[in-house]
């Protein structure tokens, strides 16, 4: 008997019929279509906004970590040539992104601006040594690389800002953990709310499903149009969610940047097409599974 059902599944005429059924179903149940699609759209928009914000935050903190620099100071009184030689030998170490030598006079001017309280009367000229700014490729090699640099000739000491670094990494980890948990929870919530909405639409049609069974429809014949309907609702909702996110997201980023221009590089790193793809996938999958799971209780004989 099972095999007969299978053969029906690949019957092209039958598929056509099932798709037709799905679409008349959607058209005839306007309120349900509206309620399902809008619920799916809003749930997915909230989920999507959260994911985008979290990707943005992750991106932002990762960028902060990547920007982390090692400050290398030459021994007191070392000449420019020595600083240049040191920069060259640091560049040769694997894992170094780039090295730049800071301008001593500029640094001193900046220092005086920052610490006007400093009693500089007794000083002869610029008291600062040469400083090199080293950027590295991978944030987690920070300690290892700073040890290597410290061992080089003419290095007085190395400042890796260990404390600040630890804080930023901890913050990044916290954001990552919270966002991961948040996305999982929101995903479950969204799936649940959507399948609830689908369940209610099916509940309103339970008599119809019963009649179809009595007319001799197999569970497969009843289920397929409803699953197609779920997928269509899910995808339509995803599309609306995408539009909402594009409009709303643009506005939020815009106003955030107006208030705080320092958030320059706050971006999720996800393209519009990528976002659309993931939303559609989520909508279609949740719609299909939601329908599939909800129908089961109404197909019980």
């Amino acid at each position: 008997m099972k095999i007969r059902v299978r053969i029906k599944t690949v019957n092209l005429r039958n598929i056509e019929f099932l798709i037709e059924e799905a679409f008349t179903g959607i058209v005839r149940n306007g309120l349900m279509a509206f309620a399902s699609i809008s619920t799916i759209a809003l749930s997915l928009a909230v989920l999507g906004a959260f994911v985008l914000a979290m990707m943005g935050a992750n991106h932002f903190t990762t960028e902060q970590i990547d920007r982390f620099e090692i400050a290398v100071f030459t021994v007191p009184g070392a000449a420019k040539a020595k600083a240049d030689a040191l920069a060259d030998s640091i560049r040769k170490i694997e894992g170094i992104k780039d090295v730049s030598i800071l301008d001593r006079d500029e640094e001193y001017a900046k220092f005086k601006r920052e610490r006007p309280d400093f009693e500089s009367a007794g000083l002869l000229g610029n008291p600062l040594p040469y400083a090199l700014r080293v950027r590295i490729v991978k944030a987690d090699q920070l300690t290892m690389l700073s040890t290597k640099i410290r061992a080089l000739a003419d290095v007085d000491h190395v400042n890796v800002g260990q404390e600040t670094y630890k804080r930023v990494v901890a913050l990044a980890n916290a954001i990552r953990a919270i966002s991961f948990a948040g996305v999982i929870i929101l995903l479950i919530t969204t799936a649940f709310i959507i399948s609830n909405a689908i369940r209610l639409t099916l509940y309103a049609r339970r008599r119809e499903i019963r009649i179809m069974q009595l007319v001799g429809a197999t569970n497969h014949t009843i289920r397929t149009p409803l699953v197609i309907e779920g997928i269509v609702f899910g995808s339509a909702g995803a599309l609306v969610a995408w539009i909402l996110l594009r409009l709303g997201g643009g506005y939020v980023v815009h106003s955030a940047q107006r208030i705080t221009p320092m958030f320059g590089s706050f971006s999720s790193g996800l393209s519009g097409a990528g976002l659309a793809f993931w939303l559609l996938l989520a909508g279609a999958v949740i719609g299909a599974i939601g329908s599939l799971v909800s129908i089961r209780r109404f197909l019980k004989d």
Partner: protein
Amino acid sequence: MFRDFGFIKPHNIVHPEIPKHQHLSPSRFASVGVLGYNCPREKSVMIYVKDVSVEYANGVRALKDTSVTISKGEFVFVVGSTGSGKSTLLKLLYRDMLPTAGTVIVDGENVTAMKPSAVPFLRRKLGVVYQDFKLLPQKNVWENLAFALRVIGTKPKEVHKRIGEVLELVGLTHRCDSFPNQLSGGEQQRAAIARALINNPTVLIADEPTGNLDPTTSWDIVQLLEQINIRGTTVLCATHDSQIVDGMKKRVIQLEAGEVIRDENKGAYQNSES
């Protein structure tokens, strides 16, 4: 003598879920004569209901050890006062429910021991007119009929032809694009009859098919059922319409409080003795 039961496949007769003593054995078939109706030897059995009891969840006993045997090609009226168990008996045949005890065999298939996945294929062989019509509310008359046909895989072209014919038969061609809630009671009933006829069923089960029709239309519909019966379909019709039963002079099975109290060939609505 056993030759006639060849269409009953062995796996349907001996099924692990039926207690041993209820297995369909030829000797049990031979005993149907005691019910007052003698199954003609030359006909094969289409509906075989044996020692069936139905007790609903609320404790109502709708059928009590009822047995009925109907041969291929018969036309049978089921009568009885309201609540006597007519609809319940019919429900067992299209497996809308399972009996508490007993065996039901329809067209050689053991309905009581059937896998759920086989039920749709049983129902496709039957045409049923439900007492409450059960038309799909979101589909118009035409679509209701089309659904019943397409479910069993009929080609679209065939669907059009068949619907046209059947609507003509029940006289509903002019209302084919109306939804059930746009039809009068009698029109809904005729749509339900049309749907039951549409796939040339082996057995036609009609539960009160003329309750909402005027006498003339009722008579036309019953004539139609007789035509279908003559072409070979077994017809089982539960009704309260005494004029029709008396006029048709067919086999009458009378139920009372869940028991068969009369089974007469060429019977009338009322017991001929009373």
